[in-house]
């Protein structure tokens, strides 16, 4: 897009752009340098603060935290996807007495902070933090999955369903055999992007005292001394962000692959669906 907005820059414009680049880089570098200086004054870069990473038990605790994060995310995703599929089928049901209540439930679930649902399950039903985290994630994400799949079905050409019904399939069979497979393939980038959201939201487990990665950081800082808070936090945050970026990249890769295939005549998916996920 940006290439058609203005002419190819001439020598003068290129020079201005180069100067701008250099000034911009210097400003950003200066900001970074200032941050690093401030940190250094607090003694963040002293070797002894980072020596704790030579200890095996620190890594064991971090690995346990990461394991807890990933297992909650994996279990929640595995339950939420089929549930989302079911909710989607109910949401687009032909019968109004099924469709409308489902719609209300979905609006309710989507309008609610995930952490509130976790607390609700934890305190209201007295479950373990693990179950509270997984239930909160499942409730919210199944509602989102349902909406994503519904958007996929609605983006299909009308003729798909009409053709299905015309060859004598029941409404349910047409949904399952004709529409859903296309809709899910189409919405794959959005679904994977939502997985990233789900993975990110496991960190809310920190608030309901689930022993995930961030809670492990807090426990270690309390136990080893607060001077180690920053190094441990830094490493844990880097792990979290690296995993999320990896999954996001997979979403983008799937999207590219999908849109290449789609060039042959199948309708194209929503543009940049993977990019446009809601926080």
């Amino acid at each position, binding site marked *: 897009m940006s290439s058609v907005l203005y002419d190819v820059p001439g020598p003068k414009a290129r020079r201005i752009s180069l100067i701008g680049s250099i000034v911009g880089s210097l400003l950003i570098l200066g900001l970074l340098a200032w941050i690093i200086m401030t940190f250094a004054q607090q003694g963040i870069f002293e070797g002894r603060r980072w020596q704790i990473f030579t200890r095996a038990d620190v890594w064991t605790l971090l690995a346990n935290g990461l394991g807890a994060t990933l297992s909650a995310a994996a279990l929640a995703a595995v339950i939420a996807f089929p549930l989302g599929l079911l909710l989607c089928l109910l949401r687009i049901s032909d019968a109004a007495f099924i469709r409308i209540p489902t719609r209300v439930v979905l609006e309710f679930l989507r309008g609610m902070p995930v*952490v509130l649902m976790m607390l609700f399950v934890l305190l209201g039903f007295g479950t373990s933090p693990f179950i509270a985290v997984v239930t909160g994630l499942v409730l919210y994400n199944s509602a989102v999955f349902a909406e994503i799949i519904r958007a996929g079905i609605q983006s299909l050409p009308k003729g798909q369903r009409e053709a299905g019904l015309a060859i004598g399939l029941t409404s349910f069979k047409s949904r399952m055999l004709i529409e859903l497979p296309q809709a899910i393939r189409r919405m794959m980038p959005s679904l994977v992007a939502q997985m990233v959201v789900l993975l*990110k939201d496991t960190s809310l487990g920190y608030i309901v005292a689930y022993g995930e990665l961030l809670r492990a950081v807090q426990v270690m800082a309390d136990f080893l001394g607060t001077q180690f808070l920053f190094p441990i936090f830094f490493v844990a945050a880097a792990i*979290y962000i690296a995993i999320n970026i990896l999954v*996001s990249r997979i979403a983008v890769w799937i999207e590219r692959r999908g849109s290449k295939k789609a060039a042959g005549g199948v309708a194209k998916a929503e543009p940049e669906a993977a*990019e446009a996920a809601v926080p």
Partner: protein
Amino acid sequence: MDVILENLPLYWNGFLRTLFLSAVSGVIALVLGTLLAAARVSPVAALRGFSTVYVEVLRNTPLTIAFFFAAIVLPRLGVKFEQFEVAAIIALSTYTAAFIAEAVRSGVNSVPVGQAEAARSIGMNFGQVLNLIILPQALRTVVPPLINILIALVKNSSVAGAFFVLELFGYGRQLANANGDAVIPVLLGVAFFYLLLTVPLGILASTVERKVAIAR
């Protein structure tokens, strides 16, 4: 039910603080996000690089990590806050800005290239193309996703309740601990107040979407 009525002033306080946090962070995030989106399409490579890295990192950071950094790690590094609201606003607005930047950018990208080409070919300059042709069309596609991001912001502000800010979720947690026998009504009350904000916004988003939809 009695618990909710007895503590209605607390709920109301929490509701107002949630509203305040969301509004202030929302405005900061909108400004910051638009600037980042502009930097992303600018001809200056350094700005482009900075914006790309910022968006990529913040979008993949769990919000709790951002809050933990602002409210617990920053004070240890010598950045002291008078009130924890400031930490909450920093975390919420920097996090949300990344999503707003993406939404604005994809809105600009959603305008077909032919529009810009046509405008250029009839002799418009860069400013005219952007102001008269691209932005008015981009805005239509951007508003619904922006409202959705603001809905998410309202819900995300609940995380502040766990980091020393007494907003809706914070009060809810307090009340739930104080009234062990009436946890479910207490938290349903909190839920009601959140829905009071998110459901109207959601309806607004879909209305706007229908109103401004253009056949492409």
